[in-house]
């Protein structure tokens, strides 16, 4: 039996990871979410004064695959080559939590009803935390799109928000996934090639170097924070187990265990998620630079081809057209890319500030709470002779 009642509803706005300006013309949020056996259904709620929409306020239900479809459509759209495409939200993953609950269910016979109930509550709280997180990630994605001056006008985005039927977006089948895989291989190889080309523009050259290193460092920190937090959670689970055992160690772990588990969860939300998010953002920024670099290379190649054509006086017109197209593409990208990268920096600093401050405040709050608890426990124990 699935110990989780599988129908977790969430219906209030959550703290958004990143500071975004919202304006009345278009506001998007996830007002509700339902976790069913294998999938999560998000209720996407929109408020808008834009003429494009039939109503001023409306909601639709979307699943994770539809978010991915939307994201991919941005990436594949040449018009948006010059923008940092907001990273897609990660797939909802309740596997670990489910596994724990299952193990608990199996072990039900070996513990008292009280112990079982307590542990079940803890695991359910954990499940809820993961659930909230995935909802937040999906919401952030939509808000980023809605806040972007160009992307918010995208037709697919409007369909996503408004069309109240299933978008019939299926996940990629094996063949498509394989294609994707090869595409990525080619892209990375190309990326290396392109990155090797020195840029005339100092700003972009600097950004290239910086982003490469930054991305690698964030990747490292993200992986390590995950591991750290996993150990912390394991320790908290142990404490939970000890506390749930009806034992001659009274008062020892009863409430402090909940606090310890919560501290681990908060670290998770603040620090690890922050790093994970910026891992994906910095990748998106790198992708932008790649596209620009690609366009630059294409432009330079087109120039060379044009020179050659002129020299041979053969297919000159064609070469000119190609060269112009490449030039326009390149310049268009460059123009927006610069601003995008500057915005990225600002966003990054703001997000880190917000999260680090909140992290510190939470840690303090819990430590102080824990202190009080310990002091009162000690008071009881010592006073009681």
């Amino acid at each position, binding site marked *: 039996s699935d110990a989780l009642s599988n129908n977790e509803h969430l219906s209030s706005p959550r703290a958004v990871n990143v500071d975004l300006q919202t304006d009345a013309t278009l506001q998007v949020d996830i007002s509700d979410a339902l976790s069913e056996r294998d999938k999560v259904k998000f209720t996407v709620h929109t408020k808008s004064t834009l003429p494009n929409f039939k109503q001023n306020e409306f909601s639709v239900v979307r699943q994770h695959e539809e978010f991915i479809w939307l994201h991919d459509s941005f990436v594949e759209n040449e018009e948006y080559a010059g923008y940092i495409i907001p990273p897609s939200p990660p797939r909802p993953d309740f596997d670990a939590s489910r596994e724990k609950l299952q193990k608990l269910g199996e072990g039900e016979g070996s513990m008292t009803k009280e112990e079982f109930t307590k542990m079940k509550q803890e695991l359910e709280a954990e499940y809820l935390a993961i659930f909230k997180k995935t909802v937040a990630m999906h919401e952030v994605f939509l808000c980023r799109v809605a806040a972007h001056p160009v992307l918010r006008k995208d037709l697919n985005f409007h369909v996503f928000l408004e069309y109240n039927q299933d978008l019939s977006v299926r996940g990629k089948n094996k063949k498509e996934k394989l294609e994707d895989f090869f595409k990525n291989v080619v892209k990375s190889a190309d990326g290396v090639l392109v990155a090797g080309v020195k840029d005339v523009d100092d700003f972009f050259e600097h950004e290239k170097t910086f982003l490469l290193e930054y991305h690698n460092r964030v990747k490292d920190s993200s992986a390590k924070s995950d591991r750290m937090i996993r150990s912390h959670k394991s320790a908290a689970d142990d404490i939970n187990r000890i506390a749930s055992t009806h034992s001659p160690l009274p008062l020892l772990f009863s409430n402090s265990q909940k606090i310890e588990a919560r501290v681990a969860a908060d670290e998770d939300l603040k620090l690890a998620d922050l790093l994970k998010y910026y891992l994906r953002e910095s990748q998106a920024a790198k992708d932008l630079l790649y596209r620009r670099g690609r366009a630059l290379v294409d432009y330079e190649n087109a120039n060379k081809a044009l020179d050659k054509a002129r020299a041979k006086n053969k297919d000159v017109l064609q070469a000119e057209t190609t060269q112009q197209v490449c030039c326009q593409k390149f310049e268009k990208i460059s123009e927006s890319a610069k601003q995008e990268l500057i915005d990225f920096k600002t966003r990054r600093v703001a997000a880190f500030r917000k999260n680090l401050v909140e992290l*510190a405040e939470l840690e303090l709050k819990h430590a102080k709470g824990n202190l009080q608890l310990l002091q009162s426990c*000690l008071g009881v124990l010592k006073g009681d002779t």
Partner: protein
Amino acid sequence: MFLSRLRLPSSEIQSTLTCNGQSAMSGGCGRNPPPFPDNEDQEAELDTQVLDSDDDDDEGEDIFTGARSKPITPTSAPDEGDIFSEEGSYVRSDVHHATNGLHSDEELDLFTEATVELTLTNTTSQGRREIIGPTASACNTTRVPNSILKPSIVTKTMEELEEEESGDQFELNIAVTNPEKIGDGMNAYMSYKVSTQTTLPMFLNKTFSVRRRFSDFLGLYEKISAKHSLLGCIIPPPPQKSVVGMTKVKVGKEDSSSAEFVEKRRAALERYLQRVVAHPSLLQDPDVREFLERDELPRAVNTQALSGPGLLKMINRASDAVNKMTIKMNESDNWFESKLQEVENEEQLLRRLHAAVDSLVNHRKELCSNTVVFSKSVAMLGSVEENSALSRALSQLAEVEDKMEQLHQQQAFSDFFILAELLADYVRLLGAVRCCFEQRMKVWQRLQEAQSTLQKKREAEAKLLWANKPEKLQQAKDDINEWESKVSQYERDFERVTCTVRKEMLRFEKEKARDFKQHIVKYLESLLHTQHRLVKCWEAFLPEAKAIA
């Protein structure tokens, strides 16, 4: 009569009153405190301090930890000669901890003292025996490994003051320290210094120490066990042998795990001795005295049987045997039957808890190493970051995480030494308790067998009478007499064992309650300390985070 109890040495009391909460441990605070005003009449035996770091000595560590011991249970062992006739008295110490966890972290005080007070009373003296009721629960000092918290104030109640006037107090402190590796290679062994400080007249000196090795402790157990377990006493089990641990040490692997192993063993040996001397009858045993006093002990042989798995097997075999017995005992046994069941249940529970605490210790250690790695990674990230305020904040964060790692480390240490070892000790102690119950059953069984033999002899006599064989009659009558006296002997034995086991159980339960409470308090204090440090860390970080722009 022999009583033992727990008491805070007055030096600690004194030092806390004069040194403003400074640790009594950290040397130099009034070693010879003036006696309490109420005790002016008492003899100089009230010499209750903790020894200074010894002559041959240890890096400034105080070597005395008291034996945490026993609640007051009047033992009625009439055969023990009443060597002493003084009245007992005791001090109850209500230790109040300053929750000022901000002591210097660098102090590594491994010991806090507590003393075992062995007080001797005469059963006939004014019936004072009854007064010594269960009071020992309040004492709560002892070892605070790696911790900074010190007990500060001691208060006494009116009764205690009254009691104090009435008699002398004797005490016995034992510490096991200075592990030293003797020899090389596979024949090497660890030698430990066993130091005793006592005011008991039965010892030759007031302060003395000897060197002992692990097999000596096992040998002591064997001797004690042989003599006292038959009487139904609960014999504290010695620490377990560990082939892996010792081999690493022998081979000379100088890493933290073998250092940890040695420390774990040293602490376990100390607790073992403290429990032994806290037991009133065991303390009287000359073997115990010899163990503490005599310079050279003959090598204990046959300790293989007492190695960890061996001992456990022995205990389990005994309990199997008991389970197979279909003894119908008389109704006073309800107490015994239900107690035994309680003991078995508790043992299971403690095993589970111990496994969980063990797991916790391992996860914390894992957390430590992951935190260090993470801290370095964040520092690198900070160095790449362009925004200077953010860069600074990130390197601050790296430092905070580094400090967290230290805290986790300390916490793991506490988890282990305070909790896990306590639980492990009690799992084994409960096994010893079961042995004690089994002993009683054996005595009962012997009685049964004697009774049935007597019955047979009587029947044989009757047969002879009927068959009219007068020459064998005398023999039969002699047999009957012999078995009659055996039966009455065994009946007396059974009575005595029953009585002893009951008393032992009571003593054990009190001791266990006290022990657990004490350890929990210590553990909570260590948690408290950790939380304080944590608060400081993050409070320092917060402004840096806010300064990001």
